[in-house]
Every structure is written in C-alpha cells, then in structure tokens.
C-alpha cells in the first residue's frame, strides 16, 4: 500500500485500491462464499408438522365442546388455560411450517442420489477423455504451426484456426446437431446411398448416444488446446532442434527431449482450459441431447436451480464441480512444474 501511494499519490492510490478491493470482494470472493454457504444449509421440512397441527385443531374443538358443557367456573378456567396453550403451540408450529428453520451440515453433499453421483463421475471421466484426445490431436497441429512452417504458411494456418475459434460455441455445436440429427447430413447421405429410408423413420439415432455430446465437445473445445501450445512452442529457438538433429537425435527423441519439455507450460494451460470447459459445459450437452440422451452434470445443476428450485442442493453440486476442477488445476501445475504466472501468459 505504501509503495502504491508513493507511485500514484495518495488520492489516486486509494481510488485504484478501492476499485480493486471492490472487484475482489463484490465480484469474486463474496459471491463464491455465498455459494459455499448456500450449499451448507437446508430447510428441514418435516412432513409430520402438518399432522401435529391437524391433531391440535381437533383437540381444541373437543375442549371447546367440553367447556360449553361445564358449569363449574374453576374447571372452565382450566379449560381456557389449556385452550390458550394449544393455540400458542399451533402458532409456533405453523410458523415453522411456512418458514422451516435452517439446519447447517454436509447433507446436501451426502444426499446426492446414486444416479446423480454416477452422472457426476461420468462427466469428469468424459471431460478427462476429451482433454486427453484433444492433446493428442493438437500436438502435431501446434508443432506444424509454430515450428515447421514458413512465416507465410504460419499466418494462413493461424487464421484458419482463429476463424472457427472465434465463432460462437453455440453455433459450432449447432453445426454438429445438423450433421447428427435424425434428418441430418449423415442420415441424409445414407438415404441417398439407399441404406435407409427417412420417410419410414429408419434413421440412425446418433443424438440418443452419449458419444454425440462427446464428439461435439471435442469439436467445440479442441482449439483451446492448440493456442496455448502454439504460444509456448513459438518461443523455442529452432536452432536447438537443428543442433539435436546434427548430433544424431531421432525425430522421436527430439520431440521427447527438446520440444515437449519446452511446451510444458502450454500443455498444462491447454489441458486445464479444455478440462475446465468440458467438465463445466452446459451448452454442448443441453443442445446436443435435448433431453433424449444422457445428462451431463451441468444440466443437473441447472435443473436444481431453475426447475426443482432447490438452490441449496444446486450450490452443493456446483461446489463439488468446483472442487474437482481446482484439484485438476493443482495436479496439472504440480505434474508440469508450472506456476500460476506461467499459466496466465
């Protein structure tokens, strides 16, 4: 803070610090805290509260009947007393019924049903698979763009990669929806070749298979793997490759000992982005399956918020996803020996 005031003067420094603090608190930390807090409590709605209330009302009617029949004033007063007691009890119970008390605990996490937990694990597994496949597919691409082409070819290739990357992800998913739909491109071609008859509804239901989501997801997020790798590979001095070759290293050895070690930060960033995007993707599964195929975890989260209206459960699901993604980031950083500063380049 002192150095800040020295650099920008006290008034300006306090404005800058104020904006930054507001950003950290209002946009990042407190909303995150609010979500975690929301996931840690629930309202206990006991089904038997209504029953107890009904029973109390019955009691009251009976006591009132007895009171009407009673002539002894002392006993009448006793009846009045018990009536007042019952009514007070009803009042507190009814308050609980309409506004059940908060209970804190981890139940939102442990209460996840078997099916939902299975979907959770499957989502993580598919996201890992998308990441691994994207890495394998993209490494040669990044290598050619960054190291194995002249300046002119590199520019053309970069544009060829940036254009699809810049197009909205929904539209990229939509393109695949058109291809795989019942009356989509593939089924259309199959009909044209005489294998199936669309009018007889003989189409192949690609969209009902989870791999449709998988295919579209690779297409949508594969480029997030390419660009970080290209960025790091471009900084590699080509003379190092030359030197390795002159010294008799095989192509495989050059990649393993020279190029891949240099690309490490890029690979880490690519993997983190691809995993994070696919594990948390709502767009791809929501559009591709349209309720016909298997669910993705993000769809369960969405439904907790906008259909079941159970924000506590939904927050717990979101926190679970966040924990897995954070763990993945930490793992990648340790595995590739890179820090946060390298990542954000």
């Amino acid at each position: 803070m002192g150095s800040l005031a020295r650099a920008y003067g006290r008034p300006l420094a306090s404005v800058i610090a104020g904006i930054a603090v507001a950003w950290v608190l209002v946009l990042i930390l407190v909303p995150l805290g609010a979500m975690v807090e929301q996931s840690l409590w629930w309202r206990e709605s006991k089904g038997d509260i209504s029953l107890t209330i009904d029973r109390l009302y019955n009691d009251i009617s009976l006591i009132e009947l007895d009171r009407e029949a009673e002539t002894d004033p002392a006993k009448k007063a006793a009846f009045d007393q018990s009536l007042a007691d019952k009514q007070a009890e009803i009042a507190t119970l009814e308050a609980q019924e309409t506004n059940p008390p908060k209970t804190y605990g981890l139940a939102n996490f442990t209460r996840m049903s078997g099916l939902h937990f299975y979907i959770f694990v499957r989502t993580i597994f598919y996201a890992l698979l998308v990441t691994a496949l994207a890495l394998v597919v993209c490494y040669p691409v990044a290598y050619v763009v960054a190291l194995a082409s002249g300046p002119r070819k590199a520019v053309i290739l970069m544009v060829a990669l940036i254009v699809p990357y810049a197009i909205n992800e929904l539209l990229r998913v939509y393109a695949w929806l058109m291809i795989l739909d019942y009356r989509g491109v593939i089924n259309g071609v199959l009909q044209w070749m005489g294998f199936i008859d669309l009018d007889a509804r003989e189409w192949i239901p690609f969209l009902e298979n989870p791999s449709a989501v998988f295919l579209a997801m690779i297409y949508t997020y594969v480029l997030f793997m390419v660009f970080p790798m290209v960025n790091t590979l471009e900084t590699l001095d080509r003379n190092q490759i030359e030197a390795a070759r002159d010294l008799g290293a095989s192509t495989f050895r050059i990649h393993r000992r020279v190029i891949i070690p240099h690309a490490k930060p890029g690979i880490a960033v690519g993997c983190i982005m691809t995993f994070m995007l696919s594990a948390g993707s709502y767009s791809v599964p929501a559009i591709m399956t349209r309720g016909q195929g298997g669910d993705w975890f993000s769809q369960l989260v969405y439904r907790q918020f906008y259909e079941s209206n159970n924000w506590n459960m939904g927050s717990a699901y979101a926190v679970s996803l966040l924990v897995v993604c954070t763990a993945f980031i930490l793992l990648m950083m340790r595995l590739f020996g890179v820090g946060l500063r390298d990542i954000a380049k």
Partner: protein
Amino acid sequence: MSTATESAGARLVLNIYIGLFVLYLFLPLAVMSAAAFNSFDYPSVTQWHGFTLKWFVALAHDQRLLQGLVNSVLVALGVIAVSIPAGLSGALILTRLGERSGTMLYSVLVSPVLTPGIILGISSLIFWREFGMPGGLFVAVMAQSSFIASYAMLLFLARLQRQDRTLEEAALDLGASHLLVFRRITLPFLAPTCFTAAVVAFLQSFENYNTTVFAIGGEWTLVTEIASRLRFGLSPVINVVGVIFVALTLVAAITYVVLKKKPKT
C-alpha cells in the same frame, strides 16, 4: 525459410494431417452456412429445395432475436464499464506489489479465468439475490465481469511490463503532481491496451453462454435465445445468424491479416 527437420515423407504426412484438421474445423460450419440458403423448412443440405433468402427476411422480423441482440449489446457495454477499470486497477497494483503479496493477489484475480463458467453464474445469482436483484441483465453483467476483468488485467499487465518507469519518475522529480503524471504519461501509454481490452471484453461478453444462462433469469441475450430455440426445434433462421457470424469473423480475420502485413511492405 522453414527449418527442414523432417524427411519429405514426414512432411507430407504432417501436411495431410493439418489439411484434414482444417477441413474438420470448417466443414461443419460450411454445412451450417449452406443450409441458410435452402428454402426447405428444416435446416438441411441433403434435401435441397432451391436457393432462397427468405430466412434472412424472417430474421429481420424476429422480434425476440432482435431484442436479444439489443440486450447482448447492453450487457457487453456494461461489462466494458465494469471490467476495464477493475482490470486496470488490478494491474496497476500488481506491478507495484512485492513478490509474495503480489502472488497471493494475483492468484485471486486470475482465478475466475480458471473457474467453470456455470460456477461464476451461480455464485453471482446467489449473491445478488441477497440484495433483492433477481437474475437478469444486471446480474449477467456482474457475473461476466468477474472473469472478463481478469482478461483485461492480463492485457494491462503485459503492457505495463514494457513500461519505462523512469519517465514517470522524471516527471515527478520535475514537480508534476501524481495526478498529472497519471493523466499525461501512464494513461496515454495504456490507451491502446484500453482499446484492445474493450474489444476483447465486448466479444467475450457477446459470445458468452455458460455463465449468462445461469445469471440471466427470465431475460435473454441473443446467445441464450438461440440456445433456447435450439432445444425446441431447428429453424433455418438460426443458420442465418450463423452465416452472419461466420461472415463477420472472416472479414475481421482478413482485415487483421492485411493490416498486419501493411507496415512491412
């Protein structure tokens, strides 16, 4: 020109591989674009019923999509207004902080970039409900700004690393006030980055779906409207939106390449 480290055969294989990859990237987009001009009611290229522009006319009369476009622009402008000052402040502080406290603050400020978008949407939704703000355009602005400000900050940080600090110090020594130095030296130095950051923020906000869909509540932007259309049935009107996006991106990319080449010749 290029370092020929591979044999001719290996180069051929690599080139074919790249060609296939680019084809894989563009073919679905080409299919989507072509279907916008098919007069068949269902977006298709295999059942061609003749060339038409009627879906473009249909788009021009689609009130919800047009309102979505307006909403998207409003949200994007809001995001620029929030995230540029935030990103700039964050960067100015980080360049002056020591190694240790700097790393702490840095981790917090870049964390939204590494957080799944739906989490940002959800946490903003929950936070702003406490203040009586239900999901809508305002919450969408806040949710998007939380990570777009981080991108802006990274851009400012990169620029500030190349700053010659002696200039500011000299001005201060010569008796200029801090405010004057900031206005006459620091800000002009950062102005190009302000522009870049604003463009990046606009595009990021305009495209965003995963965060927005949670924060938007009952309102809609162009992108969330497209998504909800896609869930109910396909219409070539969406393909028209796609064609427009593809065309704008191509024009922007080509302009960029041409502009980048110019200074060399």
